[in-house]
């Protein structure tokens, strides 16, 4: 063949290929395409759980401080050591109350004195009563009978002197004077009785303060700290209820709300709980250019057994979740603003499907509308030259299983084989 022939034939061939290329590639080309699908996925019913991870430490949920006011009391000795387990009612330390003891003695003495006075008044009143009786009888009975009262003659004169009763005074007057005196004395007595009651209540309150010469614990827990120098708080008790404490970054803080469920893994154990407290004030001093951290505390639904305080916990907080929703791998969804996906249909074609997306986390996308569970979505390539293009798939030798051959009917087997044998 001559050179010019070869050159011209090559040129014709190349321009032929170029024309074909143009016709295939031009916009709204009518030429059929077959998309070679490398990867695909099925829409599955799944839970989309949005979480973030942070670290925490197992800590007692609360600490109780025990104070000792030495103004009234004198410290004796501690009854517990650091690390001791205590329950509500366990004595913690002993003390004495010298001043109160002294006060009690004084009050008791005063009370005794008042009670003595009351007794005196009672005696006096009964005397007055007798006297009154003797007077009223002497006026009504004969003189001779007055001997019977002669035994109390001395007393009467003494009383008369005490009451400043005139000897010549009539018996009526005497009686009224005596009655006056009795009222006076009864008033005095009731005053004294009031005083006794006051002393009683004083003693009660003193006793209350001194009766427990031991301070007892109000809660269950572990003695965390004992201050031997007696600086307050003298004892700190850590409660038995454990919680997880840790810090959140600014981003995590924004997403967090109290009450959000969380899981934690501490020492190989899985714990469940909720976000209890979030401290709105950052941990460190505010500084420009530095990320702030916020303290959080999580309570656990079930108290873990035998978990040492200070155990590190990997916490994952659930900030949002969608349970039992159609989901698809995130790569199947294209375009964020007007999302769509490519569906592989039963006719061997690809259709573009616009979707409404929901929650997305960890590569899994919730689908609210557009595609349904079990439908097949294309993952790669991420572009299709035309709508309703045919598709074929790359073989996935790793997914071939012997058992699958038993699942398909012999009719289906022959169909597959014949497609391979006959079709071009």
């Amino acid at each position, binding site marked *: 063949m001559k050179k010019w022939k070869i050159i011209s034939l090559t040129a014709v*061939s190349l321009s*032929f*290929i170029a*024309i*074909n*290329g143009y*016709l*295939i590639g031009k916009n709204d080309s*009518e*030429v*059929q*395409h*077959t*998309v*070679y*699908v490398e990867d*695909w996925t099925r829409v599955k019913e799944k839970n989309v759980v949005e979480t973030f991870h942070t670290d925490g430490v197992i800590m007692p949920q609360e600490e109780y401080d025990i104070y000792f006011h030495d103004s009234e009391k004198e410290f004796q000795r501690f009854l517990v050591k650091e690390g001791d387990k205590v329950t509500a009612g366990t004595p913690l330390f002993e003390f004495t109350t010298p001043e109160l003891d002294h006060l009690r003695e004084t009050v008791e003495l005063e009370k005794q004195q008042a009670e003595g006075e009351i007794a005196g008044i009672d005696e006096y009143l009964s005397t007055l009563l007798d006297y009154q009786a003797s007077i009223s009888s002497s006026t009504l009975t004969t003189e001779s009978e007055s001997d019977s009262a002669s035994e109390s003659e001395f007393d009467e004169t003494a009383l008369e002197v005490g009451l400043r009763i005139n000897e010549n005074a009539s018996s009526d007057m005497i009686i009224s004077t005596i009655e006056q005196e009795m009222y006076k004395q009864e008033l005095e007595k009731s005053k004294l009785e009031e005083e006794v009651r006051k002393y009683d209540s004083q003693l009660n309150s003193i006793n209350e303060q001194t009766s427990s010469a031991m301070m007892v614990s109000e809660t269950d827990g572990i003695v965390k700290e004992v201050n031997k120098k007696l600086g307050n708080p003298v004892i700190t008790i850590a409660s038995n209820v454990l919680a997880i404490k840790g810090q959140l970054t600014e981003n995590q803080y924004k997403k967090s709300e109290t009450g959000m469920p969380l899981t934690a893994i501490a020492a190989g154990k899985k714990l469940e709980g909720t976000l209890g407290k979030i401290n709105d004030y950052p941990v460190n001093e505010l500084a420009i250019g530095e990320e702030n951290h916020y303290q959080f505390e999580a309570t656990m639904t079930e108290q873990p057994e035998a978990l040492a305080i200070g155990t590190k916990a990997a916490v994952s907080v659930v900030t949002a979740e969608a349970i039992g929703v159609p989901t698809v791998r995130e790569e199947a969804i294209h375009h964020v603003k007007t999302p769509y996906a490519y569906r*592989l*249909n*039963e*006719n*061997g074609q690809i259709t573009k499907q616009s979707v409404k997306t929901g929650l997305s986390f960890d590569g899994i996308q919730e689908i609210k509308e557009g595609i349904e569970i*079990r*439908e*097949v979505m294309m993952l790669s*390539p991420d572009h299709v*030259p035309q709508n309703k*293009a*045919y*598709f*074929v*798939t*790359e*073989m*996935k*030798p790793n*997914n*071939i*299983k012997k*058992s*699958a*051959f038993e*699942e*398909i009917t012999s*009719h*289906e*087997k*022959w*169909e*597959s*084989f*014949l*497609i*391979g*044998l*006959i*079709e*071009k």
Partner: protein
Amino acid sequence: MFYQMQVLKGLLRPETSLYQLQKAERVTGIGLKLILLYLFSFIIFAASTYFGIGTESYSGTITDRTIEEFEAGKLLLLGGRLVSSLFYTSLFIWFAAFIFWLSLDVFYLKAVAVQIIVFAVHLVENSITSLVFVLFDLNHASNPFSFGVISQYFIRNEFWNHFFSAITLFHIVAITILYYYLKNLTKRNRFVTLTVILLFYLFTWLYTALMAYVEVPILFRRWLG
């Protein structure tokens, strides 16, 4: 005189090969070349099926099969395709040589030797087009080396589109080479030779178009249900 079967030489130095073939009383070295061609054909078919070329009518089953069942079916499809590679190679070399022996009175083994050379062209074609298909998301109907693309703009009928897409530049090259060899090996006139060759290729194109047009699942549904 012997003709030592050499495929590349037959393509690149046709004059020398033709001369040797004309003078030869015996043709040797066919066996090894044939095994290699069968092997290449096998590999090319396997590779193109791996990427999914020509499996459009199977793809739809993806929706109601598990991935394992889908892949199991594809493995059977690959099996069918590999068997068809043996048929394809055999028919093209042995059956075509038989036709040319019968109609053009060419010494049979010499016809086989010519077909081996021409078949190499088809293997090159298959490997190049497979690569182009996968890279540019195309199928047989839209083969850019064929007339199928242009015909799709003018004809709606799928069968004829498949027919035109079966006619490729490589086929024209193959026909040219075949014609060059056979016209010099036969005593029949050039016109008859060309007609026989073209008829053979016409039959190939029609057959290919039919096979591309046919969809086994649809046939199955018609026959069985």
